Structures are given as C-alpha cells and as structure tokens.
C-alpha cells in the first residue's frame, strides 16, 4: 500500500520506488568514486600494497566495455534478426533446421575456446573478442525472432493478406510489431549475457572491465576482482532495467483494460 501522497512528494515517492535511478546512480558513483574507497579496500585487504586498481580509470574501462558490448551486440542483433526473419519466410524456410543446429553449436562453444582459436589466427586485441561475442550473442536473438514470428496467429497473417497488404507491408505493419516483445526479450537476454561475457576479452588484450578481474585473478588481488565484478554487475542490472522499460512501452497496448478509466490512465502515462 502506497501512502496517499499528492504533488511533488508523490512524484518523489514514485522515483524512489523505481530501481532504475538507484542502480544507475550506484554505477556512476562507483565508476567515478572508486579511488575514494581506497581506505575501505585497504581495511578489508590489509595484505595488499595497491588495494584499488589504477592502471586505467574506471570511467575509461566502463566506456571501453560499453563500446565493445555495443558493437558486438549491434552486429549480433542485425545478424540474428535478419537470419531469423529469413528462415521464417518461404524463401529461407528450408534452411531453418540447419540454421538452428548451427546456432546451437555456436552456443555450445565456450567463448574462451573461440578466443583461444581466433587469437592466434587473427591476432590479439579486440577483433577476436568481437567474433566470440557476436557468435555467442546470435542464438537468443535469432531464437527470439523466430519464436516471435511464430507467435503471430496464422489468421492474423491471412487477414492481412486478404485485406490487400503485400508481403512487405504485412511484415512491418503487422507481424514485426506483434513479434516485437518476444524479439526484444531475446535481445535483452543476449545483451545482458554479452555484458558479462565481454570481460573475457581482456584475456586477449582488449581493455574492458575484465582487465581488473583478470589482473586481480592472476596476481591474487581479490580487491581488483571485486571492483571489476561489481561494476560489471551494475552495468548489467542497469541495462536490464532499461530493456524492461522499453518492453513496457512496446507492449503498452496490451495492458489497457476494458474501461475508459484504463484508457485515460494510458494517456496519462504515455504523456509523461
């Protein structure tokens, strides 16, 4: 039960009850303020000479990590959605079983193994890491796309065709909007996994939030490991909540109830 508040206290209460601003604030505060926590880490790990990771600023690591995730996820999204679309059309339907087994295989290779194979061939740095992350991220997106398109009722597709929408119009006006929530939840899963997996890119020399973790593990510096891991976790939590927001917006029409009061509330929410 929320207290009966009005005006700005009500708005404040609503913001305070929302986890997104909290996790975002924690992320920003820890990224910029990690060095200030030096006394805390020194007290927790008195045996360490350097209790806070200092080779790079955490802000630079977060940016590098994010850009690696953004690039690999963008490629995985484009590839996964297009391939998912293609195998659901008459032209590509024959390839669907093959495509699904290939995807399952790509998922069963540990990304570390992909890195171990790719790094000697194309060299160290970001390129092998990107390949591993894209391969690993494709499956949930392609599966989400296929499941989303499968979930569109055949009758809806038929009536779209019967009313005179051509294949392309039926796809972007009817099928994709109806499939969007399922596709988006596939993208959400893929991106969240990607944020965690991108840490291993640091084993082949790319700078990410994995750097303090890898260096901490090899140098028995648990403080480094914690600093990297906490930031990765906060990044994942914040992104997950952003996706939740996006899903709510996409599915807004579903949650309108049968009364005019519901319709009025919807207008209010979307107008905010």
């Amino acid at each position, binding site marked *: 039960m929320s207290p009966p508040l009005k005006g700005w206290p009500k708005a404040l209460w609503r913001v305070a009850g929302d986890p997104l601003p909290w996790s975002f604030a924690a992320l920003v505060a820890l990224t910029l303020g990690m060095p200030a926590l030096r006394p805390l880490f020194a007290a927790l790990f008195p045996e360490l000479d350097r209790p806070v990771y200092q080779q790079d600023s955490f802000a630079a690591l977060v940016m590098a990590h994010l850009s690696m995730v953004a690039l690999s996820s963008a490629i995985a999204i484009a590839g996964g959605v297009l391939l998912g679309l293609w195998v659901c059309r008459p032209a590509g339907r024959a390839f669907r079983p093959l495509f699904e087994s290939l995807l399952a295989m790509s998922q069963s290779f540990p990304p570390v193994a992909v890195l171990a194979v790719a790094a000697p061939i194309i060299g160290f740095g970001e390129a092998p890491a990107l390949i591993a992350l894209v391969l690993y991220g494709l499956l949930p997106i392609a599966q989400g796309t296929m499941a989303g398109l499968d979930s569109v009722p055949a009758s*809806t597709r038929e009536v779209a065709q019967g*009313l005179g929408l051509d294949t392309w119009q039926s796809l972007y006006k009817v099928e994709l909007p*109806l499939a969007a929530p399922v596709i988006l939840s596939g993208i959400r899963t893929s991106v969240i996994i990607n944020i965690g997996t991108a840490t291993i890119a640091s084993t082949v020399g790319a700078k990410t939030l994995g750097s303090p973790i890898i260096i901490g593990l090899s140098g028995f510096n648990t403080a480094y490991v914690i600093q990297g891991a906490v930031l990765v976790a906060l990044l994942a939590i914040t992104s997950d909540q952003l996706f939740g927001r996006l899903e709510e917006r996409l599915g807004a029409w579903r949650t309108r109830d049968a009364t005019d009061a519901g319709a009025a509330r919807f207008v209010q929410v979307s107008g905010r």
Partner: protein
Amino acid sequence: MIEFSRVSKVFDGRKAVDELDLVIPQGELAVLIGTSGSGKSTTLKMINRLVEYDAGTLRFAGEDVRHFHPETLRRRMGYAIQSIGLFPHWTVEQNIATVPQLLHWPKPRIRDRVTELLELLHLEPGQYRGRFPHQLSGGQQQRVGVARALAADPDVLLMDEPFGALDPVTRAALQEELRRIHALSGKTIVLVTHDIDEALGLGQRIVLMEQGRIVQQGSPLELLTHPASDFVRDFVGRSDIGIKLLALDRVADRTRHDEAVGGEPIASSSTLREALSAFITRKVDRLPVVDEQGRPAGTLHFCDLLEAQA
C-alpha cells in the same frame, strides 16, 4: 459479378474444388454452405486469390482474376473472418482504416469514413474509435471486422464464417445487421458458413457444397421445398423443414390488418417461426401484432401460418 466456370483446385492430389460452375450476380447475397472439408472456404479464397485455382476460369467483373494484381484485387474486395482477425496492436480506428490507408486516402476522408462506419454498426464513435480489440466484446470486435471489410467501399464483401465464434444472441443481432447493410448498400456478398439457419436466414442464393462439388443451389425456399437429394434433405434438417419454412416469412406477411385482439403483442418484423413459438407458449390462437414503432398493426391467426406456403 463473380463467375466460376469449371474451376478446380487440387491439394495434395485431392480435389478440394471439383469443376465448380457458379455465377454470383451483382448485388446478390450468396451463402456457401457445407460440412468441413466440402471446399466452401477454398471456393471463397479463390475469389480474392488467397488460394490460386488450378483449372477452369474464374472471372471478377468480367475479367479473369489472374489478370489483376493480387493486392489490387483484394483491396477491391472486403474481407472478414472470425473475430480473431482484428490486428490486436491497432485501435479500432486504425483497424477500420487499414484498406483506405493502403489506398492513400487523405486523412480527413479516412476519419470521416471511420465515423460513418462506426455509426452504421451502432458503435458510438467517440467511445470506441480509440479502443484496442481486446477492450471490446466478441460481438463488438466482429462489428469492427465488418466495418473494416466495408471501409474502402469494396465491390464485393467476402466473409468466412464471420459470426462463427459468437454466442447465439450476438450472432442473431449481427445477422440482422448484415441483412440491413446488404439492403442498404446493395453490395455483392459471399458468405461462408456451416450453420444452415444462418444460411436460410441471410442467403438470397444458397450454394450447398460437398466434396468440392455443388450439390444444390437455389433460394432458401427451393432448398426447403425441393431438396435435390437425401443429402440436401438431411442437411436442411429433415424433420425441421416445416419449422424452417416458417422462419423464411415474417409476421407482417400474414397479419389481418382489420382485426384487433388483446394480450401481449408480437412485432410484425418477427418471423412466423417466432410467432409459432409464441402461440404454443401462450396457449392462444390469436396474437396482436405491432409495427416497429410499437403501434397496433392487426392480428395474426394461428390458422394463417398454414397459408400460402410453397
């Protein structure tokens, strides 16, 4: 308007439609009826090329349907199926506006057309245009489905079991609505159903199909009084034929206008079948009749039910 001549369609080596000959003239309400798998839906879908026929010729407005671009052809024909056919992510207004938008009508014209259609189907425009399909009852959804099919003022209305998923009360109301729209617009309507009462109540021509062939076609009266075979007799309901005949005529046709009796009245627009039911339940042999405005219009005698049949 629509001419089938020796049209066939084969699915997996089985003839779904077998050398069908059928002419549906302009302005007629034709009902295709049959058991499931009789080829009635396939026949309907060949008209707007959702199914392509294999042999014979199928003409629309004098021209082979294959000479039309499929999308152009479909936009000239309204299409309505069971209520699940509304686009769930679009409002009532967007759903109705589907075809006008495809035809690039100007926005104000689309808006006016939506208002007009909502009024035609007795849905208050201000209240319903912004709603989503899941906020409507089954009957309201189907009204929107019919409005959407009518939106671009098509030459032909194709309806595939449009009222199949509705409860009997709502179905009867929508059938009445369709009869009114047909009388008002004079559109050619082809309707598929498996409900013989719906067919007898709506159809000007009933086309009874079985295994891809037409078993009999004709007016409801012809089917009831001159069934071509035992199959037809069974289909129209052997022991109920008399009752169904009564359903074809209205109380107004048999009313004696110069008489008046007391008691609870019956509307002149009711069918004689409903009148028979009223005679039996009220245990009377005379019923007062009132017109649409509720004014006394005369008396219906029980013995007059027998008159002028066949």
